[in-house]
């Protein structure tokens, strides 16, 4: 009784809506940093995080330094001193990699751990936007391990520079290692957000985390091999690929880290029946699709419409690569084909006349169709694991080569009409098949980075997958079959006619 009466009365201000709407990045970052500060402070209070970071930051570089000395002595004793210079750059990268591997643990803890402890919901009920929460938590997961990695690399390099080895690493190498470490940490954290968004328990997310840690470990091995083989310029390309992966994974994570996904998912179960029903209903399409013709009209056409962005991207890439191939001929004179190179081969005209005998040479309809189909299916499968990047690349790469060849001066000697006659008749069928197949595969691969807002990621993916199957079976495969028939029986005749004329 006394408590209630004696308690001070609340000073209540008039209800106001003073929370500002965020319209710029600075505001987003400021709000995100409120979350980051809290999370980092929390991480520093967690001995399960701090002890490994401390050990990996301070003890591992010293251990690595000891190992370096042992290896250096071993190389010297066996007369392999040059190997020391090859070996030394390897360890700073590994010294940096161990602490950043902790970022994966922190990220899983901060995203799925909080979801499991139900401490995320109070945060979700604040005015912070999904993006602010996501950036705040991502930075919190990256900053402590990354700082530890930089310190670790610094300690190790310091020990090498001022220790017995007196090694002076190139500035470029140090920059590469620091940048690669940073990009790798970001890939792991953004990847773990994607993983944790699909689970509700740290146990499940730890299991799924192997999908991140194993490829990253393999990448570090590849980077090591590149260093040993003294092809360090390739590390810049790996860095570019990692930055692209960072951007894609960040975008994907930002899309998946939303209130709806986080609170809508309650159990990690596989609902095959539901998945099968979604797949079937999407394959069937519109209810009006009763027969084959109406299926094409209502279902296949809709799938084409829904995949038009992917097809546009593929078409644009094809044209861009064709033009790039042509331009490359002018910028790289060394790559130009000379008349001598062509005359060293059997007569060019003879080559074209052999078109007529393609089927007798074992390149029959089945072979050409099978080959094209394999490429298309391969591109589609790779698209799933590369966010659609590989389907675009595989579809357009051939056109880069084609552009390069078409721009060769020697082609004018052969005659463009002959070259076009050898390409166009079947290309009319095969190129649309390629654009449709690669386009829908690109849509499927890229979907996870930006799923539609009106349905869950898994449902959207299943529907896009069904659309891909539908368009491959209903459009691309028939077009490839017709293209193969034309390539074997029609194209050679047109080529012969052109040559004859």
């Amino acid at each position, binding site marked *: 009784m006394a408590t209630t009466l004696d308690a001070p009365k609340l000073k209540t201000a008039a*209800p106001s809506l003073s929370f500002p*709407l965020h319209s710029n990045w600075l505001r987003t970052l400021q*709000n995100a940093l409120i979350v980051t500060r809290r999370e980092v402070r929390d991480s520093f209070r967690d001995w399960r995080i701090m002890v490994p970071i401390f050990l990996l930051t301070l003890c591992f570089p010293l251990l690595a330094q000891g190992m370096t000395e042992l290896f250096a002595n071993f190389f010297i004793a066996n007369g392999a001193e040059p190997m020391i210079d090859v070996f030394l750059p390897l360890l700073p990268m590994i010294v940096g990699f161990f602490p950043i591997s902790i970022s994966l643990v922190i990220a899983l803890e901060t995203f799925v751990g909080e979801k499991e402890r139900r401490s995320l919901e109070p945060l979700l009920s604040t005015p912070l936007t999904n993006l602010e929460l996501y950036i705040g938590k991502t930075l919190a997961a990256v900053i402590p391990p990354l700082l530890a990695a930089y310190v670790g690399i610094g300690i190790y390099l310091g020990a090498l520079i001022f220790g017995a080895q007196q090694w002076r690493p190139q500035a470029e190498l140090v920059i590469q290692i620091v940048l690669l470490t940073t990009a790798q940490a970001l890939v792991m954290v953004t990847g773990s957000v994607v993983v944790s968004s699909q689970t509700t328990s740290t146990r499940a997310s730890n299991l799924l985390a192997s999908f991140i840690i194993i490829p990253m470990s393999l990448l570090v091995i590849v980077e090591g091999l590149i260093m040993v083989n003294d092809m360090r310029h390739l590390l810049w390309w790996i860095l570019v690929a990692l930055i692209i992966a960072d951007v894609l994974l960040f975008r994907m994570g930002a899309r998946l880290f939303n209130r709806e996904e986080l609170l809508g998912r309650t159990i990690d179960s596989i609902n095959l029946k539901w998945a099968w029903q979604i797949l079937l209903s999407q394959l069937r399409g519109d209810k009006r699709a009763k027969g084959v013709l109406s299926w094409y009209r209502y279902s296949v056409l809709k799938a084409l419409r829904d995949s038009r962005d992917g097809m546009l991207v593929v078409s644009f890439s094809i044209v861009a690569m064709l033009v790039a191939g042509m331009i490359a001929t002018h910028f790289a004179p060394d790559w130009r084909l000379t008349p001598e190179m062509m005359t060293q081969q059997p007569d060019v005209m003879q080559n074209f006349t052999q078109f007529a005998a393609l089927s007798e040479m074992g390149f029959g309809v089945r072979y050409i169709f099978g080959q094209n189909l394999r490429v298309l299916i391969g591109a589609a499968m790779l698209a799933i694991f590369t966010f659609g990047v590989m389907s675009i690349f595989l579809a357009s790469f051939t056109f880069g080569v084609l552009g390069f060849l078409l721009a060769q001066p020697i082609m004018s000697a052969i005659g463009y009409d002959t070259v076009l006659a050898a390409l166009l008749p079947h290309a009319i069928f095969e190129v649309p098949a390629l654009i449709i197949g690669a386009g829908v595969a690109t849509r499927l691969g890229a979907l996870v980075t930006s799923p539609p807002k009106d349905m869950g990621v898994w449902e959207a993916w299943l529907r896009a997958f069904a659309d891909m199957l539908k368009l491959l079976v209903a459009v691309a495969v028939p077009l490839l079959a017709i293209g193969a028939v034309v390539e074997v029986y029609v194209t050679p005749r047109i080529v012969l006619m052109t040559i004859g004329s």
Partner: protein
Amino acid sequence: MIEASGLTKIFDGFVAVDNLSLYVEAGSVFAFLGPNGAGKTTTIRMLTAILEPTRGWARVNGLDVVRDAAQVRASVGVLTEQHGLYERMKAAEYLDFFGRIYHLPRTLRRERAQALMARFGLADAMNRRVGEFSKGMKQKLALVRAMLHDPPVLLLDEPTSAMDPQSAKQVRDAILELKNDRRTIILTTHNLTEAQQLADRIGVIRRGKLIANGTFEELSQRFVGDPIMEIRFAAPLNGASEWLHKELDVVAHGENWLRFRTKSPQEHNPILLQRLISAGVPVVTLSEVPHTLETVYLQIVNEDENLTEKAQNGNYA
């Protein structure tokens, strides 16, 4: 003020909330009752702009929960089903963190944190780690967090669960105080006495549908029927019992007591009392048998159960 119309939420084919419409007047308390998994939390989450409705619309404090989601979240204080506190933080740090999120100036967030903590008897716990708090203290701290930014609307999911009677009373008093201060409050609870004490209107949700909505009196009238009166006599009735049974809609009786239902106690009771006195029947008391919210709630749920069963049987037939 909170209003919703046709509010529906579907998760992967499962209808969690089905076509729910409600209106909660500014400065009133609305109690949301229903079995576990009925859709209360999902409704609260939609009203706090955490989840987007699949269909329908809702406005909180005049703001649309979809279009003005961030503003809605800024204008409501939410006590979630699980308090979800950061156990490694001190209470002061925890409140300061949320105060920053709501962009409260440093002095104001300190003042409000201290005042609210004192209001709930937690003034001495400001510098203690949350992990050291008891269940009830944690619940109160979560409530302080919800009230920290002085929101005009409060959505409280089980505000007194896990609390000792004294703490629960502190929370109930705070809710009434907020109501008097023209705050709009929705609370979900399984404590029906508490709901009856605090709520101006009561809604019962079952299987995602709002199956009843009204004041306690309205619900009581609708689902339990006319008021039941009880007369107690100084001695056994004997001969008088027969005519009383004829005149009244008796629902139960004993040797020296009798219960009857009446549509209009105001008109009926004075006449009855007069007749009993003139007949020399020694009346000790004549009073209304109060319906409890529990009776009303169980009646509502049972009726809905029967309706569902009938509908299912009809479908099978």
